[in-house]
């Protein structure tokens, strides 16, 4: 790894190799640490997904008697919104790398808006289901816990991206040093991927 760093900073980076070495190494550590954080977060989701599949397979069949019907169309639209936000986040980071600040800002604002739209869709879905978390048996147990946890991750992501945007405006990141933006993008894609799994197991399975 150390050798790879020297190639990056020393040969490609050329004249400013010395001051950048610290950045290159720190960036490696932070990206790897963040990936491991996402692994442990994935384990958190997996445990609840296991719980859902366990309850689902150990009882009265699925959906359990008396459970409300999920709205596949609404969820599909909502999914498209969230996947779209993944794409806009990708464009945001790419524009930052190409040193286009205004385009970057536009795309990240779009991401935040799409995220908020997704959350609104979730709230509409919850309102239409019109059952309580604790009172709707194992359906509510599994569905509200998992989608709620995911929704909370989206909510945190919106705040995260907003903070990143403000930091960019205040000049915390340069076009050469932007580890925080990379991590934010990773997080947002992670939340996207989790939704693919949740959508499949609740609406398609």
């Amino acid at each position, binding site marked *: 790894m150390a050798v790879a760093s020297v190639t990056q900073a020393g040969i490609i980076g050329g004249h400013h190799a010395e001051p950048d*070495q*610290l950045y290159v190494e720190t960036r490696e550590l932070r990206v790897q*640490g963040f990936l491991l954080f996402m692994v442990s977060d994935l384990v958190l989701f997996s445990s609840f997904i296991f719980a859902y599949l366990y309850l689902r397979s150990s009882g009265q069949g699925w959906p359990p008697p008396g459970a409300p019907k999920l709205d596949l169309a609404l969820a599909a639209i909502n999914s498209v919104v969230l996947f779209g936000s993944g794409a806009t986040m990708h464009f945001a980071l790419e524009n930052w790398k190409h040193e286009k600040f205004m385009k970057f800002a536009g795309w990240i604002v779009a991401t935040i808006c799409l995220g908020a739209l997704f959350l609104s869709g979730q709230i509409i879905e919850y309102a239409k289901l019109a059952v309580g978390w604790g009172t709707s048996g194992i359906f509510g147990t599994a569905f509200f816990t998992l989608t709620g946890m995911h929704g909370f991750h989206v909510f945190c992501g919106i705040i995260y991206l907003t903070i990143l945007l403000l930091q960019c405006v205040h000049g915390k990141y340069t076009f050469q040093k932007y580890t925080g933006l990379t991590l934010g993008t990773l997080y947002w894609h992670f939340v996207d991927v989790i939704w693919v799994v949740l959508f499949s197991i609740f609406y398609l399975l």
Partner: protein
Amino acid sequence: MAVAAVHSGGIADHIHPEPQGFIRRYVFSLDHKIIGIQYIITSGIFLFLAGALAEMMRVQLMKANGGFMTPDTFNQVFTMHGSTMVWFMIIPLMTGGFGNLVMPIQIGARDVAFPWLNMIAFWIFPVAGLMLYASFLMGAPAAGWTEYPPMSLQGQAGTSMWCAAVFLVGVGSTMTGINFLVTILKMRAPGMTFTRMPLFVWGQFVTAPLLMIATTALGAALAALFIQREFGVPFFDPTKGGSPLLWQHMFWFYSHPAVYIMILPAFGILSEVIPTFARKPIFGYKMIAFSSCAIAILGFMVWAHHMFTSGMAPALQLPFMVLTMLIAIPTGVKIFSWTTTLFGGVLKFSTAMLYAVGFIALFTIGGVTGVFLAAVPFDLHAHGTYFIVAHFHYVIAGGSVMGALAGLYFWYPKMTGRLMDERLGKWSFWLYMIGMNGTFLPMHWLGLWGMPRRIAVYDPQFQTWNQIESAFSFVMTASIILTVINALVSMKYGKRSGPNPWGARTLEWMIPSPMPYYNFKHIPSVFSTPYDFGEPLPYRGLEEELTPTPPPVAAAH
């Protein structure tokens, strides 16, 4: 030399000046060594609390009909004893404590990858501990440290507090796991390949992913229990479609690997102490390292052996039984390697070595009874009896705690620059051996005779043996108190140790004691494993470490 040039301007050359204020230096410190000592002291306090709870139990059990406390209090006491010992004593001590203290130095780094995360992870731990003990004020949890529903659902308000406290301390453990994994993967000194790492580092390296993955799974289980208790969401309530067995699956998927979180670092400590005091290269370096990996991987596949009696699918019992028995193989490889290292060595029985050798004996007993319990027919007989209590106390009190004590006597001079008193140390060892065996050995046959665990009163025919156990348990407590006194007194009056009192060869012994803030003046290069006693040291670039020249401090910024 190209390797050395790579690091110029990188993290390895990035030395901050040492902070001078008391708060930044000793309280909210970013220095891995101070944080390690903070962990050791804090887990020592929890050892004291949990030990006091254990003695309360032993006093209650001196009479068949009890009388010292109510059965309900007894339930709270053994629950808090187990919870404290597992999450607030052994795990923080073995990972946050000894891991922080020496792991970064052993790989030739200046600190862990994320010092801030390290500090936050530490400070979560005492806060969570306060929360745990606050649950006594609101009716402490009383369903055992495993908190099986439906009993945990009927528990008093403190059970929810217990969930929150253990969840929090788990968050801290996850942070430590991530931090250590990145540190070991990315921050090793030039030449420190994986097969040249000290075996204690291997222990931490294998433990870190367990901390990261298993603790998060436990977090999910605790969150589910908390949600059910506070919001009535029926995860574990069969009348509403939930399943109490689900808790057992979620809980043991964590808590079986947690056993290895507690023991793998102790294996690492043994692998440092034994070759040092046998003056011999460790036998089977690679086998010890790889068997740790095998144990960690197998550890995720055996959780249901805790559930043979709970009505799981019988078809699953056989695979879980076989997988569990397989763990005995990598564990046996280690025992074999250590005994072979001892064989023909020039043994020097310092206190650390005594504890290490005692570990081999007692842990083997615990390991063998573990194989008994893996066999389904035997487990059906012994489950829920004192045999289980005997088994896991041999593994934890005879294994992990002995390993920790070996580590304490071994690395104490590195922390303070002074040696612990050897005479008191040997007294503490023999008292511990006698007390530990006297307390837990009779539990084997009491269990086989059918004495159920976790009950405040029992059949009078078992009273004599229980009185013997209680008497010996005070011997064990005396031993621990002796070690604590030894540590406190030696801090001021101990003999000066110099940098390397044991003639050990890992990197932490190449720098002054107590260890300087920046660890190394220059990051060394590594050429071989650290266990080749009799050969020249496998390091280059350490010439100035023990001279009084000042370290190269980068400009503050």
